Every structure is written in structure tokens, then in C-alpha cells.
């Protein structure tokens, strides 16, 4: 069972829910308060009842202070449980605002520790200083449990929609990410080369669009695979939706050993 985590301002939960449901994977919406406390007693939930948690896109808490900062800070209440959750090999995935939340709460990059107390990555304001909504080309650099079903070096088309998506980190963390093959997706142009704006829509360091932790069971990406689950949602005509395999990979991992 997958939990789709949300709070006020999360607005992409339906799209992710429908993707899992279409693949007949058990999935449920959970409000943040049901994990961290603050909801009525009979609505309280335990994260260990779930095999995985997905954090969708949107504007949690209005992106006030910083995108994902408030959601991340509220999640810190259950840091211990989250650490255990990840240690057990369960999965946590963040898309767009979800990626921002994972960097703010410290579950990514997952290098020095499973969860760190201060953010080591920032998804900052786009270089264009504008909200950018467009389809981009992504190169699948390395596999992780969320992208098993994609070929290495495959180029896919996925839409982005964000005002704060510029990947910034320290030199040290960047080197580690590269060494450990934690960079999962990079923005490229049609030919597969690393290019500037608009192919890199936000100015991310090294065109980084998505990363995972060391083990590959925590993952975040700025683009929205759920928005191209079906071929008819693509900008250009395609036979299969590029986003479908993202969810198929997750389900494949959940069913391992079965």
C-alpha cells in the first residue's frame, strides 16, 4: 500500500493516485496530520502500515518562506520513524514540490546520513525568475528503484511546472552524487546533449533534474512523470506515455521477492 502524503496547497495528489490505481496498486491519500498528529484520534495513521510514501507536487503551504520548507519542517516531527522507514528498504518518492520537501527535511541526498538535520540541497528560484511550464527532454543517467524500467541513457519527454526548481548544492555533495551514481535524470536537448535554457528550464547545476539516495529507495525529481502516464498527454505524438514506466518501476520494487 502506498500513501500519498498531502497538506494544504498540495494539489497534484489526484494525478499520482490515478497513476497507481491504473496499475492496480493499492494506494491511499493521507493528510500530513494523520502521521504527525493533530488529526482526530480515529483518523491517526502509522507510517509503517505503508510500503511507500509519495509526496506530490503543488504549493504546500503556499511555498511560503521557501518551497517545501514548511512541509519539510512539519515532517521533521517524525524524523526517527522516517529514518527507520528508509532503513527498512521502504520507499519515499517526491515529485516537484515533493522533491523540494525531501531536500528540506533532509532525506535527500542521503549521503552523510539517512536524514540530515540541515538541508544540503536547495531547489531555488528559476534563473528566468518566472514560473516555467513546458515539456522538457530528460536523459536517464543512472538506474534506481524508481526508474528500473527505463533504459540507461534513454531520453524521455516529461513536463515541468515550477518557479523554484534550480538544483544547487555544495561542491562536495555534487562530487559525491556523481561518484555514487545518484544523479538519475538530467535535462538535455533533443539530441541528448546538456544544453542551456530553455532545455534546462531553471538553471540547475549540471542540468540535474532528479536524484536518489545511496541505496536508491528515496528519490526526487522536478518534472512530472504522472502527467505523461498516457501517450495522449504528451506534447508531441507518442505511442506510449513516458511516465508510465516510473510507476511500473515502483510497483516492481514493491513486489520484489514475491
Amino acid at each position, binding site marked *: 500500500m502506498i500513501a500519498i502524503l498531502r497538506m494544504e496547497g498540495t494539489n497534484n495528489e489526484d494525478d499520482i493516485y490515478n497513476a497507481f490505481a491504473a496499475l492496480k496498486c493499492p494506494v491511499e491519500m493521507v493528510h500530513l496530520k494523520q502521521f504527525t498528529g493533530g488529526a482526530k484520534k480515529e483518523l491517526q495513521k502509522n507510517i509503517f502500515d505503508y510500503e511507500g510514501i509519495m509526496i506530490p507536487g503543488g504549493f504546500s503551504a503556499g511555498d511560503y*518562506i521557501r518551497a517545501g520548507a514548511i512541509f519539510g519542517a512539519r515532517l521533521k516531527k517524525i524524523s526517527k520513524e522516517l529514518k527507520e522507514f528508509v532503513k527498512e528498504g521502504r520507499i519515499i518518492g517526491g515529485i516537484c514540490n515533493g522533491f523540494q520537501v525531501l531536500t528540506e527535511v533532509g532525506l535527500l541526498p542521503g549521503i552523510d546520513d539517512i536524514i540530515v538535520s540541515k*538541508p544540503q*540541497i536547495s531547489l*531555488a*528560484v528559476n*534563473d528566468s*525568475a518566472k514560473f516555467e511550464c513546458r515539456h522538457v527532454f530528460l536523459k536517464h543517467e543512472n538506474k534506481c528503484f524508481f526508474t528500473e524500467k527505463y533504459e540507461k541513457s534513454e531520453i524521455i519527454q516529461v513536463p515541468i511546472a515550477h518557479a523554484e526548481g534550480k538544483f544547487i*548544492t555544495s561542491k562536495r555533495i555534487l562530487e559525491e552524487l556523481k561518484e555514487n551514481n545518484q544523479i538519475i535524470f538530467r535535462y538535455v536537448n533533443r539530441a541528448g546533449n546538456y544544453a542551456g535554457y530553455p532545455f534546462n528550464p531553471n538553471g540547475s547545476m549540471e542540468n540535474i533534474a532528479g536524484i536518489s539516495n545511496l541505496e536508491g529507495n528515496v528519490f526526487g525529481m522536478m518534472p512530472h512523470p504522472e502527467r505523461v502516464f498516457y501517450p495522449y498527454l504528451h506534447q508531441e505524438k507518442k505511442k506510449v506515455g513516458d511516465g508510465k514506466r516510473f510507476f511500473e518501476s515502483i510497483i516492481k520494487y514493491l513486489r520484489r521477492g514475491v
Partner: protein
Amino acid sequence: MAKVYVKYKKGILDPEAENTKKALEMLGYNIKDVKIWKVYEIKTKDNVEEMTERLLVNPVIHEYKIK
């Protein structure tokens, strides 16, 4: 009451500041530089530095001072 001043670190591109500079130049002004600070005025007895580090800034891109 404490005032927390937050701004981008040196070396981090601040597109809002860049655009503000450009917009002023378009109105005919001669601008050397623009830096944008965000100021949080917080009335509290609790530890403001701790609050700042826990939520108000991301140390990867921000620096701050508290008055």
C-alpha cells in the same frame, strides 16, 4: 522583538534582484547593484537563531543576520 534578515549567499544568482535591476534600468535609472533581503519580524521569547536555522533559511543558498 527580533528581526531576521535573510539574503542569498555571495555567488548564488538571485534572479529577482537581477530582474529588479533591469526593470529600474528600463525606467532610466543608473543602477550599480540590487540585493534583496527578506526580513522576518518575530515577537517571541524563544530562540530566534534556532528558528532561523530550522526553518527560515536553507544554508546551501542563504546567509542571515539577526538584530
